[in-house]
């Protein structure tokens, strides 16, 4: 028994073909099978639980977009957007309400990464770095206004030290917060995108959702550099 059996012969790259052939609404409808509704909570929960591994391994990054990017690769943009919506709401309920104002960021991550995944942007390491940079750009563009207007420029994490550095060297609050996110976000989001691809790649064929986008099947020269990460 595997996913493909009870999806009644759905084309493995269905979201890719419908996005190009049918209307946007057809694409959304095609993405939301019962299987998809079951996968979204998994993406949400993995985003929340990733923090447990990050702490256990003392990794110097957040990886809070991991679950959203995994659903973007395994299902598609709309499911990933819904995952993003619930990541911050569920984290806000279970862990810390200050995640809730950042909800629009994760929705945007999901839409962008899912759209790119369907167009083959998870097939080589070079392109995955591109996905990470696009997600980082969204995070800076949408996150900085929320940090400044809602939180007075503060995040309550180690990033505040970077904001302090920019303020101490003469920046205004807006410039300091944007400077801080430009330092922190690209690193965090590129690593998140690479890790999401490596994790999705390791899912055995029989458990891979029928909607999954191709991942690292054309890994080029850059893959040599990342080989040590593959474990």
């Amino acid at each position, binding site marked *: 028994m*595997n*996913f493909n059996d*009870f999806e009644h012969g759905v084309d493995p790259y269905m979201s890719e073909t419908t996005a190009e052939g049918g209307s946007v609404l057809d694409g959304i409808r095609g993405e939301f099978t*019962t*299987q998809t*509704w*079951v996968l*979204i*909570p*998994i993406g*949400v*929960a*993995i985003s*929340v*639980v*990733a923090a*447990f*591994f*990050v702490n*256990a*391994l003392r*990794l*110097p990054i957040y*990886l809070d977009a*991991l679950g959203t990017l995994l659903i973007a690769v395994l299902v598609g943009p709309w499911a990933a957007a*819904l995952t993003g919506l*619930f990541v911050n709401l*569920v984290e*806000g*309920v*279970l*862990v*810390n*309400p*200050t995640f809730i104002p950042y909800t629009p960021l994760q929705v945007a991550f999901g839409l962008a990464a899912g759209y790119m995944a369907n167009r083959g942007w998870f097939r080589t390491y070079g392109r995955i770095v591109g996905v990470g940079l696009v997600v980082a750009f969204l995070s800076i563009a949408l996150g900085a206004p929320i940090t400044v207007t*809602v*939180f*007075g*420029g*503060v*995040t*309550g994490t180690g990033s*505040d030290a970077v*904001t*302090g550095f920019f*303020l*101490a060297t003469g920046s205004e609050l807006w410039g*300091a917060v944007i400077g801080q996110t430009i330092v922190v976000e690209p690193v965090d989001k590129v*690593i998140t995108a690479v*890790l999401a691809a*490596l*994790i999705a790649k*390791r*899912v055995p064929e029989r*458990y*891979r959702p029928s909607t999954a986008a191709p991942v690292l099947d054309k890994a080029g020269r850059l893959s040599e550099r990342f080989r*040590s*990460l*593959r*474990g």
Partner: protein
Amino acid sequence: MNGTGFFTYQPADSPIHALSPVTKLVCGAALVLVTFALPGWGGLLVTLGLAVLSAFVGGVGRSVVRTAATVLAPLAVGLVVLHGLFTPAGRVPLATLGPLTVWQGGLVLGLRTLVILATFVVVALTFVATTHPKRLTTALIERGVPENVSYVFLASLQLVPDLQARARRILDAQQSRGLDVSGGLTDRFRAFVALASPLLIGALVSAQTRSLALEARGFSGQGPRTHLYQVSEPPAERLLQAFAVVGVLVTAGWRVLA
């Protein structure tokens, strides 16, 4: 707080628990929005006071205040240090420590932001502690939220402690096989992949059974549904909701005109 380290619903028999989740959602959001729009200190302390009072009336005051303190402490440090040292609003120095000057205006601005955030955090935690997720989704479905969407919310809430326990077992299992969790940065990123992939694969395996079980119960079926629970919303609560919405509009209008 319970054994899993997550903040969750605390059952009790209080007037706050008895309110409809929609009423709590509307009034809580209204209180937070009004707080963001208030100019002076007096109004801010009244809204924070209201939020804390509702937590204690709901019988969850102590755990809400304790959790709010842990959530707010790092933000408080950031706000006081960053604004106190680097926002010379009004240019009134409060103290000078070597090359550093503490500015009075910055400190006041930082504390103001902290009080606003404290109101938001206390309101949100009180809502979580006094509202059973099942009652919330039932009430939201009655107000027109699709069943699938509320399923995602409930299933995510239930899956988190489940995956957290699984994550702990995977960490133990991989370490017993010699996984290095304290090596260099590359080793630790490699360890992350070795920990997160079994977590995802395990979740995908159980997802298959789950989607079969849901399908067998008519998850994707069309047509009207009946519900096991009903959430009552007395007219007095409808009035309270309307009052909260009007309160936000009046505050916003007054701020725009003033």
